């Protein structure tokens, strides 16, 4: 047993982000007409405390223990996810979805938050088991299955945002495991086809690029055929799929493309968010003083759009501080991945970072209409017990990995 010295840059950064976040949750509740949001900061504080205790507990265990619980934890989370399809419930603006696990009318939590963690662990286990990184698409069936099963369930809930996070985790960890760029690109090509299918010309151009890539990379013949088929399928099938999207999903995508199209309805959120952020200026309107938030122009101000409150009340200065804290955290985790003692730990650390990175990118980008509105929360900021707890448990895992890692004085031998 080695004595672990806490990774202070990691913990302090996460703590600063959490304090900043809870302060913003508190401010989000300070509206002119008080609502239930006025009190949620208290439960957020409670969840932070529980999360820190959990993180401490995990940091006192060992990576091997974590590795040992990986499979059961993964299976449990898939089971819980599947259960939401049967007894799931919606909440808030996503009332028609089933992402909440509910027993006897009491909402227990969102299994998808747990799944984000366990999928990272499981994917790390699968990828670490191989001596060589996957060299062909056929080699990827196992990792794809690990992510694919929960992903399909989540898309059935449906929860587009979490689905995007899973894809981010998948690609991030494949990259970290050493999968080459062209293979990653080929893997992602059907998705690109899907996105470009709305313009025949763009899709045609993409298809030529794809052909060039295949000729350059020379995959197995069967793979090449499957890839081309998949690209044609998504490129052609996409419009049909579009018809199958729920109207609100269609709207969100449409609003992403043109937020002024219907400002009173779905574009309203983004427009109000941009107004809030832009009116913050350099120094912001002052803590709790944001008028867009106070007068209820800003929707979901304590969850999805909390970063708009940051922008409105703390200005460009506050935004810079928040984003810098995230950057410091991510760079620190990347370092931890680099220093990790074994490939499993390394992959876990990078996967957790990739997951948060996608959250931050999509959520913060969404507030300025750089990303579609998908309902992805902002780590350490958005109100939500499950997510706060899961985030701090992940910090605990990272503390342990950092502690066991190689390098400068990150740990002392006992």
């Amino acid at each position: 047993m080695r004595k672990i010295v806490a990774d202070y840059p990691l913990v302090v950064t996460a703590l600063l982000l959490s304090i900043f976040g809870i302060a913003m949750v508190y401010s989000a509740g300070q509206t002119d007409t008080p609502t239930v949001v006025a009190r949620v900061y208290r439960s957020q504080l409670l969840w932070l405390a529980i999360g820190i205790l959990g993180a401490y507990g995990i940091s006192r265990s060992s990576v091997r223990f974590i590795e040992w619980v990986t499979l059961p934890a993964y299976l449990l989370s898939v089971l819980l996810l599947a259960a939401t399809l049967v007894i799931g419930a919606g909440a808030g603006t996503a009332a028609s979805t089933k992402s909440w696990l509910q027993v006897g009318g009491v909402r227990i939590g969102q299994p998808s938050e747990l799944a984000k963690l366990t999928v990272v662990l499981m994917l790390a286990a699968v990828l670490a088991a191989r001596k060589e990184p996957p060299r062909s698409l056929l080699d990827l069936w196992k990792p794809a299955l690990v992510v694919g099963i929960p992903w399909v369930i989540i898309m059935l809930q449906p929860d587009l945002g979490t689905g995007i996070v899973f894809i981010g985790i998948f690609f991030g960890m494949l990259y970290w495991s050493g999968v080459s760029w062209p293979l990653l690109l080929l893997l992602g090509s059907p998705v690109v086809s899907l996105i470009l299918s709305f313009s025949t010309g763009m899709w045609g151009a993409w298809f030529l690029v794809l052909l060039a890539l295949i000729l350059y990379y020379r995959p197995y013949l069967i793979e090449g055929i499957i890839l081309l088929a998949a690209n044609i399928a998504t490129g052609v099938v996409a419009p049909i799929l579009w018809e199958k999207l729920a109207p609100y999903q269609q709207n969100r995508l449409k609003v992403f493309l043109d937020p002024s199209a219907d400002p009173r309805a779905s574009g309203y959120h983004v427009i109000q968010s941009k107004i809030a952020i832009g009116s913050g200026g350099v120094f912001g309107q002052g803590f709790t003083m944001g008028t867009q938030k106070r007068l209820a122009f800003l929707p979901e101000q304590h969850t999805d759009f909390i970063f708009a409150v940051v922008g409105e009340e703390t200005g460009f200065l506050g935004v810079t501080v928040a984003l810098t804290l995230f950057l410091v955290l991510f760079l620190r985790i990347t370092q931890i991945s680099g220093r990790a003692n074994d490939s499993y730990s390394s992959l876990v650390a990078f996967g957790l970072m990739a997951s948060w990175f996608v959250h931050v990118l999509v959520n913060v980008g969404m507030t300025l209409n750089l990303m579609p509105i998908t309902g992805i929360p902002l780590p350490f900021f958005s109100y939500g017990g499950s997510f706060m707890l899961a985030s701090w448990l992940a910090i605990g895992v990272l503390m342990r990995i950092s502690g066991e890692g190689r390098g400068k004085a990150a740990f002392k031998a006992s």
Partner: protein
Amino acid sequence: MSFHPNDIARRTRLSSYGLIIGFFLLLSAFFNAQVLQSGFYRRASEENRLRAIPLPAPRGIIYDRKGQIIAENLPAYSVSITAPSLDSLRESLKRLQPTLQLTDGDINSAVRRYKRAPTRPTVVLPDASIDVISVLEEHRIDYPRLIIQSVPKRFYPDGPVVASFVGYTGEVTENDLNLPQYEGYKPGQIIGKGGLEKQYESVLRGQEGERYDLVDARGRPVRGVGERPDKNPVAAPSLKTNIDLDLQRFAAATFGDSLQGGVLALDPKNGAVLALYSNPSFDPNRFTGGIPADYWKELNTDPRRPLFNKVIQGTYPPGSTWKLATSVMGLENGLVTMKTHMPITCSGGLQYGRRYFKCWEKKGHGSVDLAGAITHSCDVYFYQLGLKISLSKLAAGGIDLDFDKRSGIDLPNEYKPRFPTRDVRAYYNRLFGANWSNSETLNLAIGQGANSQTVASMAKFYTALATEGTSSTPELVSKKPEQKRIIQLTPEQFAGLRLAMAGVTSAGGTAASANIKGLVIAGKTGSAQNTSNRNKDHAWFVGFAPAENPRIVVAVFLEFGEHGYFAARVASKIIGKYLGYGGEVIANTEGG
């Protein structure tokens, strides 16, 4: 996975670069929004939370020449409501209907105003009673979107007395808003609808102010003052008119309930309108805040047509008052002098062709010169004078005397007189086909036939007679006088005409009963054939006084007035009042 330290180091490096690039991309987007475009979003944020409540400006006060008030503003209360949607508006109105005693018409008007300007508070009641206001104030908390405002309301202390020239005000209509001159006007705003109020709308309209209320996302006002200071309404400057309100009141009183017609009193030197009254009149105060339906119906069904301005809109044959125009043409062309007699003496009529043209005096006037013909209004004399002048020169001369043009008074909707064009042949052909004879000359010479004038245009012509040839455009509000020399006669000839016209109101003249002791009134009576009732001619009198140094020109028209001297008596009273003769009318035997 490949866990070689070199691979790991390379990936760590690449990932870190990727993270840093992503960070700066995201940050630059925020820099753009929060620093570069901050002003735009700040305004958008203000527009979100600040609702502008219009503060109506008082209209300009209208004064008479001595500073007496013709139109002013009284405080009133208006009730408006803000609504996020049409459905919400309808709902609110339904709830408010019993409290505000709204009629369906009120609701429809409010809905119409909302549709035109949904972001502006919708006026529900432009002029609410104090009872309604006090009830609303009690329930203020139940209606957070209700706005009760003190607003100026137009008031005319003299009401119907001044309606003929001042007009009235009312809410700008849907049709008005589509017109270019009402660009920038908003539904619910008050505009001038007639008379001076309309003519000088751009002057009388104040500059609307704005108050900024802080509202939340659902449009409900919240506590705290707006961050933007109020923009106070700017009252319009006052408008001073040439009207002599005392004379105007006297004119209205003279017409009373029984007489029907109009009067225009001018200062001959500059065309200043001293009084303009059309009887029966209407009460413009009842138009303020919406005309009650029954009153509107009453005005429109009254056969005496109170809304029809008999001074500037009524066009009637000028009858004998036009004989002065014929006289002027005869003198100008050197065809006659004041002393010239006509070949045929008046024996009560004149045979012309196959028709016999009667003189109004069946007994006949005998042989009269031009002066006598004017004094006694001898038709037979003017038939012959007309024939001497010829039809085409009568028409051309009339046009030179502006009888084919509006007087140009500064009031809206003045009607154009009816008068032949210079090409008389073509004109009459158009009027009657080829089937007309030179007897039209006889009609035209005595002010009948294809000649209908407004009271205003006749008064304008007489300003030229009163000032040795210079006519002045009637002006309610003094501008640079529009004057034009239309009569080219010698002072002696003018003196002759004045003497003849003075005879009209002297013993033996056609309006001897209009005489005022110590004052010489020069004028001319006239009666116009009434197409609707042959037995009741319209009566005219146009004249000025004092004859030697005219200070006032008065044109009186009485519908169904029968005899010119009735009109002359009205004119005489008004002249007497203005010139300080106490309106004494000396009863006399009628001269005809």
